[in-house]
């Protein structure tokens, strides 16, 4: 086994646009400290599409919010680690400088298109706002840019619809507006947090396709957060699998689907419904539940649910190590079959 630190692994020719290192975000609630993100490290290369996958509560959204420092105030706090964007440390940046980056160099698309747009402001004004803030454009120039963005995300009658309000748009249309808003300042990195989860399946495909087309056109990197391995397979180049606030596996997308190393990843793949599996066969599931993140986890967080867990797994946390070229997994028994 070849133990390599993750940051060394990505020391390729291109300098990464985003470097997250040992990020720790904790939530301080009345019931105790929840370690939502507990030592996450990864990088995103310029123009790359990185997928982050994991079930609800694994810390993928919190990771995204931590990068932009948008955690709910006084509740969630980044307690350690480092987030470097284009070589600049974001976690120690003054709030004013951070605002210059948000929506400008790094933009974000959220899960809920129905509630993520302000109901009392026009679509045009909401898109134009970012352009006015970051590019110092006048309102009329910014509104023209807004109409242009709406055309780009294929909203018919874009010029007329800039004056409309969010309630006059459908869910899919609103997510297009969110994409238009996020891309209005041509960000270098687009963080999409479950952008299609709340949409109809048919609309999902359209939105993903649109996002990737625009990404190609603008050359921005994308961090796509999802719980849907199908979405990952269709869109991403590299994948990170998260479990209980930690990265458990990281690989190129084809490699991951071909030869998943972590038992959790294998469990996720086994639980995807497939046509032709036979009618009688029950869909596989991962037994047990996600661990309580308020309690300290000794050993591997997945051990209680793992079919191949050993005594070592329960005692000692496995490091994220490179088991095959470019393929990292945090498992003492990586690749072993149950």
């Amino acid at each position: 086994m070849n133990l390599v630190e993750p940051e060394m692994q990505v020391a390729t020719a291109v300098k990464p646009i985003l470097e997250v290192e040992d990020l720790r975000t904790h939530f301080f609630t009345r019931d105790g400290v929840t370690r939502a993100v507990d030592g996450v490290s990864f990088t995103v290369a310029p123009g790359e599409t990185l997928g982050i996958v994991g079930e609800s509560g694994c810390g993928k959204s919190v990771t995204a919010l931590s990068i932009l420092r948008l955690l709910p105030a006084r509740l969630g706090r980044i307690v350690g680690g480092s987030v470097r964007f284009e070589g600049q440390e974001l976690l120690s940046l003054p709030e004013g400088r951070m605002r210059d980056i948000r929506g400008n160099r790094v933009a974000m698309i959220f899960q809920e298109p129905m509630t993520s747009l302000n109901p009392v402001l026009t679509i045009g004004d909401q898109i134009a706002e970012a352009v006015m803030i970051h590019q110092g454009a006048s309102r009329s120039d910014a509104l023209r840019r807004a109409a242009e963005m709406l055309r780009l995300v294929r909203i018919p009658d874009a010029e007329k619809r800039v004056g409309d309000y969010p309630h006059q748009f459908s869910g899919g249309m609103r997510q297009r507006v969110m994409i238009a808003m996020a891309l209005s300042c041509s960000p270098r990195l687009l963080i999409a947090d479950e952008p299609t989860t709340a949409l109809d399946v048919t609309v999902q495909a359209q939105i993903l396709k649109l996002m990737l087309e625009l990404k190609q056109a603008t050359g921005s990197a994308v961090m796509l957060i999802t719980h849907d391995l199908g979405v990952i397979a269709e869109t991403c180049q590299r994948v990170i699998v998260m479990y209980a606030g930690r990265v458990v596996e990281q690989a190129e997308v084809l490699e991951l689907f071909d030869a998943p190393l972590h038992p959790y990843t294998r469990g996720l793949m086994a639980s995807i419904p497939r046509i032709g599996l036979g009618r009688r066969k029950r869909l596989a599931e991962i037994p047990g539940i996600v661990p309580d993140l308020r309690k300290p986890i000794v050993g591997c967080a997945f051990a209680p649910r793992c079919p191949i867990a050993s005594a070592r797994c329960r005692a000692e946390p496995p490091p994220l190590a490179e088991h095959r070229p470019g393929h990292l997994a945090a498992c003492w028994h990586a690749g072993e079959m149950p």
Partner: protein
Amino acid sequence: MGAYIARRLIATIPVMLVVAVCVFLLLHLTPGDPAAVLAGDNATSDQVAQIRAQLGLDEPLWRQFGMWLWRLMQGDLGESLFWGKPVLDLVLERAEPTISLALTTITFAVIIAVSLGVLAAWQAGTLVDRLIMGFAVLGFSVPVFVVGYVLIFVFAINLRWVPVQGYTPLAEGVGPWLERLVLPSIALGLAYVALIARITRASMLEVLAEDYVRTAQAKGVATRPMLTRHALKNAAVPIVTVVGIGVALLIGGVVITETVFNIPGVGRLVVDAIQRRDYPIIQGCILIFSAVYVLVNLLVDISYTFFDPRIRY
């Protein structure tokens, strides 16, 4: 929109009619012979008979009501028993101080209360929030007359910053006019400020937890526009509702405030009329106050469309 306003105006007719019935019955539900009550303790029987004839009190009740209502619809609120002048004239003569007091109070109260409420919501859970909300509870609990006398004692008598009492018409300059309105406005507005600040905080807290506030922050919007443009506009509907409902609080307060600060307004007219049992004035003023309240709340309903594009009439 026009049709909606017309519909709402028509809907105020039954409301005002109920008010009119209550106001009319005010005189007749008073124990004893209204004419004798009106004439007072030392009146002769001739005087009582004269009053009875003057007011048409010897007619059947329904006829009295019908005649009273008929005159009312022609804008005739009756004649004061004490002044011998039409009630409407008396009210109009005293309207300026009352309108001045009400408008300055509402303007400053809304500005201060909304600012405090937004600040408290933004700083929720901190010392600032607790101080503002503590002040709000206090402001709502202390009666107008206590606040009024304390203000007079401290700022007019001890510090001599402003005149003690009275009213200077606007025609004599904005400075002197405002100078005498400062203390009464504070006394009158304190409970109003407390009410609006509390509802502003509650409404803002809810809005600040919404996804679109996070979207605004993700766009790089600074704190101030985030609080006002994005959050406050969404929080506005409950706030303007309470501003409208709170006008009832102000109407009650005006009567006391004008007495404490010796302002010759409609409130004083009512207090004096109550002491003199000048029923036509009491009745007329209740009707006018009710109409104002109904109209203010109609305006509030219409203002919803300005804040929230989803509301269309």
